[in-house]
């Protein structure tokens, strides 16, 4: 298990330094935790990478006003039609290029494939954001068609689902977004949680939950603490149920854990015997040699 945990952070590092083969990276964010800090981390990793050839960074902006310092090319696209975008986006695809799209919400779902055709090549890596909190457009003509988000999730080779670290409950998160309630000290923090889905070429998906600190550039895997939470819940359920004390104190739990159970003792001395039933005589045992019910073996 520890090998898996170690390899997960290595994998994340490899994705962010563009060493892992993942040509379409999608970041899903909300107003409560935006993808800005992931982008910051991504750019830090790419620009500080030991790779011999640093990629060219092209920024396709629909919502960014101030030109980022790291962008070698900044192309504002908001308000343009697809033919105008085609006219404006002329990429030099002979060298490795990281294309940042901010964000996919501004692209019509009918025009997504044509937009991506402009960008996709063996030398390009697309990193784009999609805001989950912005309402999506429903097609009136074809209401059952897959949404823009579904299509993006289908195409993406790595998906970062970004959430605040302190809010793991989806229902609570939805409530905060729908009320535009930004909890003090918990929303849009440089330390955040990212549920990462990495799709291998074989088709197998690796799913991890990380906490990412964009200040110290440290990643930790978030353990699934569901079982621990369950036992805590049981304790809480017993609290206040009756006037009797049904709970156990920490000291009692410790003592209980230290009790050596008989079967553990038996495994020490007789573990080699296998599945046989072993009976050891003790001094007070009443052994009758003529016992008719004695096991003939």
């Amino acid at each position, binding site marked *: 298990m520890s090998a898996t945990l170690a390899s997960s952070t290595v994998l994340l590092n490899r994705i962010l330094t563009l060493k892992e083969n993942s040509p379409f990276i999608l970041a899903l964010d909300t107003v409560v935790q935006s993808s800005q800090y992931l982008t910051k981390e991504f750019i830090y990793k790419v620009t500080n990478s030991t790779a011999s050839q640093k990629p060219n960074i092209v920024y396709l902006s629909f919502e960014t006003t101030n030109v980022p310092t790291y962008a070698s090319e900044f192309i*504002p696209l*908001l308000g343009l039609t697809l033919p105008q975008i085609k006219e404006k986006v002329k990429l030099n695809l002979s060298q490795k290029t990281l294309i940042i799209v901010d964000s996919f919400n501004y692209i*019509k779902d009918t025009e997504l494939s044509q937009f991506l055709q402009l960008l996709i090549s063996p030398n390009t890596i697309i990193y784009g954001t999609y805001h989950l*909190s912005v309402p999506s*457009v429903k097609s009136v003509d074809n209401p059952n068609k897959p949404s823009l988000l579904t299509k993006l999730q289908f195409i993406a080779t790595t998906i970062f689902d970004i959430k605040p670290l302190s809010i793991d409950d989806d229902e609570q998160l939805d409530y905060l977004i729908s009320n535009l309630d*930004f909890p003090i000290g918990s929303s849009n923090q440089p330390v955040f949680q990212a549920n990462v889905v990495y799709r291998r070429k074989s088709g197998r998906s690796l799913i991890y939950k990380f906490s990412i600190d964009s200040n110290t550039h440290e990643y930790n895997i978030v353990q699934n603490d569901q079982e621990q939470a369950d036992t805590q819940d049981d304790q809480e359920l017993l609290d206040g149920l009756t006037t009797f004390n049904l709970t156990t104190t920490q000291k009692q739990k410790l003592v209980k854990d230290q009790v050596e159970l008989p079967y553990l003792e038996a495994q020490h001395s007789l573990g080699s015997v296998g599945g046989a039933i072993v009976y050891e005589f003790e001094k007070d045992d009443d052994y009758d040699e003529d016992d008719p019910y004695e096991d003939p073996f």
Partner: protein
Amino acid sequence: MSSTSDLQQQDLSLYSDNTPISQKTLSPNYNSLNLLLNSQSNKPTWLITSLIESCLFDTNYINKFTNNPENSAYTIASPRSHVVFASFINGSRVYSKLFKKYLKLDIESHQFHSQAHVKGSLQTLKRGKQTNGFQFISFLEDGFENWFDTLINKLEQLRKGTKENRKKINLFLENPELVLYLQDQSPSHQQREATNELLSKLTQLNQLANVFIVSSSDKQLLDWSSELNNDLSLIHSDFLLKLVHKSDLIVQLKALTTGRADDVTGELKVSRGCLDLTSSIGVDASEKEYIYLANKEGAIKLFYR
């Protein structure tokens, strides 16, 4: 809960350097986008006035009964930064009393109140050699057809006018979403294009100035589960949430969640926007919650929550 009379009054600070308008936001290298969101029962008139005062004079009238910005190092002819205040829903009369009392400015006079028509506004600027640090435009009174051209011309004029000693421009826009509501809303895809077009214009303005957008965040206007694509709440949610994703700082005015109180008018919450302001200009939003009390004379008292 204790009464507000027992609580210690607090100065308004939106930034981590304990200022309502940080000097770092007035640097020429970065133009910020800030949202002032309010509910129907909590109008931000006092907050806008207070922030404009900080932009112009680096003083603040909150928690004071009398205020004299004339004691400040800045004057209206030589302000800390320029302010253009454009309202889509209010005339100058709504603000004139507060401005007169606390900023000592008569915004209804021609000196400050320019016509919204492009031609007219340029003439006003040329005529008024005093290059005032403050201009008020009411699209409600003067028509909103040329609102964008009017503003872009105004900002470019101000940038030209102060070339040798260029000062930052702060643009306050009150309820620009009204432009969306006043258009024919029939097909849904056109609706989205209209929203994107408005956002594109706001981005162009933001490239010339710090922008403070005042908008409504009532629960009734935030609903994106609607089946109707041209539903007003869906249009507003789309516009507002896209703005939130572009914002550096968010200030919200809300009614008390516990109900009504005689000594509390509402809550004020300062939160980070979706952009990382610290890495851009080295100052962060000072995330705090306040409660405030507005009395009949327009004096404001502010307390920590």
